[in-house]
């Protein structure tokens, strides 16, 4: 369960984060790269395995709005914070 330790090694190329989502796109959380930030995200319900959907961005591009899980529960977070939410690669998932 060392999902929050990923930051020690450089990110694998092409690993997408919640900041890379297009508006309306849904993806699954894979891991959280910043240990301290992870604690805050975890207690707010952003756990590996939950789905996140990008609802939209503020007019200046930052912060952004994410809906968690299938509940109507929306978080607002800065780009720097969204970058710590790494997403599962849908291709890798379907092969597994």
């Amino acid at each position: 369960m060392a999902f929050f330790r990923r930051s020690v090694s450089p990110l694998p190329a092409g690993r997408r984060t919640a900041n890379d989502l297009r508006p309306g796109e849904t993806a699954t959380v894979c891991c959280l790269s910043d240990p301290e930030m992870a604690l805050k995200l975890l207690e707010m319900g952003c756990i590996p395995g939950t789905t996140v959907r990008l609802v939209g961005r503020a007019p200046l591009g930052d912060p952004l709005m994410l809906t968690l899980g299938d509940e109507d529960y929306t978080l607002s977070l800065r780009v720097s914070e969204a970058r710590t939410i790494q997403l599962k690669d849908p291709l890798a998932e379907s092969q597994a």
Partner: protein
Amino acid sequence: MPAAFTRQRSAPRGPVPAPTSGSVTGPATASRLPRLALIGNPNSGKTSLFNQLTGLNQKVGNFPGVTVDRKTGVAQLGGARRAEIIDLPGTYSLYPKSLDERVIADMLYNPASPDYPDFVVVTVDASNLRRSLLLFSQLADLDLPAILALNMTDVAAERGIALDVPVLERELGVPVVPMNARKGIGVAALRIVMAEQLAAPPAVRFWEPTEELLPLVRQIRYYFNLHNDYLALHYAHQFRALGFLSDDDRAYLAELTAKYKFDSTAEQARETVSRYGHINELLLEAVTVTRTERREPASNRIDKVLTHRVFGYLIFLGVLFGLFEAIFSLAKYPMDAIDAGIAALSAFIQAHAHGPLIRLLTEGVLAGLGGVLIFIPQIALLFAFLAVLEETGYMARVTFLMDKLMRPFGLSGKSVVPLISGLACAVPAIMGARTIESWKDRMLTIFVTPLMSCSARIPVYTVLVALVVPDQTWGGFFNLRGLVLLGLYLLGLTSALLSALLLKTVLKARERSYFIMEFPVYRWPRWKNVGLTIIEKVKAFVLQAGKVIVAISVLLWVLASYGPGDRQARAEAQVRQAAAAAARPAGPDTERAVAAARLETSYAGSFGHLLEPAIRPLGFDWKIGISLLTSFAAREVFVGTMSTIYSVGQDADLGTVQQKLAGEKDLAGRPFFTPARAMSLLVFYVFAMQCMSTLAVTYRETKSWRWPLAQLIYMTGLAYAASLFVWQVFG
């Protein structure tokens, strides 16, 4: 980690009997009211419930060492029983992420604390049960007797979420009361359940420290004689922040955690994930979601407009304008009434009694009291606005819209509202900074808000601008005086933002600041909550900042009314003799000349003379020096003092004061108030902290004299430097 998921029914409690609640507080228990703490996530309706339970029976104090309001109240329970309720700051877990949340740890981890509750009422959002139960499960594992207030059942029902309350009660091991605190539904049932004096802690265990942690946990537990492993684990996690531990205790824990290579961050993450696993399992049974149609929630549709790139800002601008109008124009009427009322009362007293004590009462105390009461309309209106913005959920959108713009200056999206309010008055504006969660952002906002040009500067600005700036219009549109006035406002705004930037680099953050926040759904405001907020804020201001204001006001009055030795009497005699010699009949002219002479020979006058060498480089003389001192009570007093010194009488209108000032000549016989001198004075008033009420309210909001003092020194220094520059370059 299967051990973590095992659920224990109440029977096997562990080796040490849980010494909860009653037994800890000892013999005093019988005489005092049962104490309960209200705890829950932000936006879970905790404040609504607190208001429902206590109504006007609320007291606001503060937790030691932090700037968190400590709201307590007495609630009537079922069966004519009563209980003392304490409202804790909203939090998502027992691991504090902000200074405010530490209050909870200090209270719940120390059974010897005078605030230690007999039981807790946990408010949870029924439409977000999974997340809400995380906090509940932590509380339950501390063996705190608890009641679950299952709030916002209406929102849950709307979303097709059906909750099986009996199953929840069984799974959670505590009474569960479904309710809608905003509307007051279920509150009666909650009162009855609360009256039943829970003795037993929850009968369910959600999570226990893993095998590897047990050696560490047990050692802490026996060392501190704690009743529970989980509590001991929290000591390991949080000992650095727990105020009630001694330095030796902390050193012991530091050594112990190092010895066992305890990784607090990793363990917290592991625990949280494990708890969610358990909660998910439990909710499978208790919750059924039947979504009839998957339509977009109304909130999202409203957001499309309110956070739109064009309309979003336009609407926000409109809201700000409304707020500004309210505290600027609307508040004027009650403020004028208060002013007139105090003046009438003081005239009435003076008409019926005389003597130095009466003058102290009317001109010192009553004037000071008037100076406190005068702020009530603005505070009430600003907080009515703020409460509605918070209640409806719009404030979160404001933060969302403005965050990127404010961040370069070290301010947050939430700083916008206090800063704009500061254009009307810094006093309510600084109180409004309470909505900013991050300690550093809040301090920055409080620190720079008084630099925004408030309405008390307007009389000073108008007199001086009209004095030296010709009433010209450029291009048939731009009035020169208007442009100068605008320039002064922009100077204030720029200095506020730049000061924030400066302070941002100086001030160390005390905590990691997170922006991440829940976006609450839009709701209609509950007027009861709005009303109680207004009452609470007005009370806090009058009782806490008011004392300081009255004290300074009395002091300033003494300085301006009395002088050393018999200098005042001699000066007065001199003026009267001169009048008699010139064969002028005694009248208002003589009285005004006497007032001017008395003021000049008062302590304030001496101070003005004393100050002159220091302010001469700014182009100021002793007369301005006196006004600087007296206008420390409030900036607009500057005009009144100048009127007295130039013996035009306190009640003269601005035109008369202007004429008098314009007629003032320097030693060489040229007009004293040159554009450069007036500009120097104007710039001084843009920057200077000439307001004891702001200092008093900063003290009340930061709970420390260091902040108002720093503000005073910084702003006065800035004002001095700016005036010096203006006078030395242009004078």
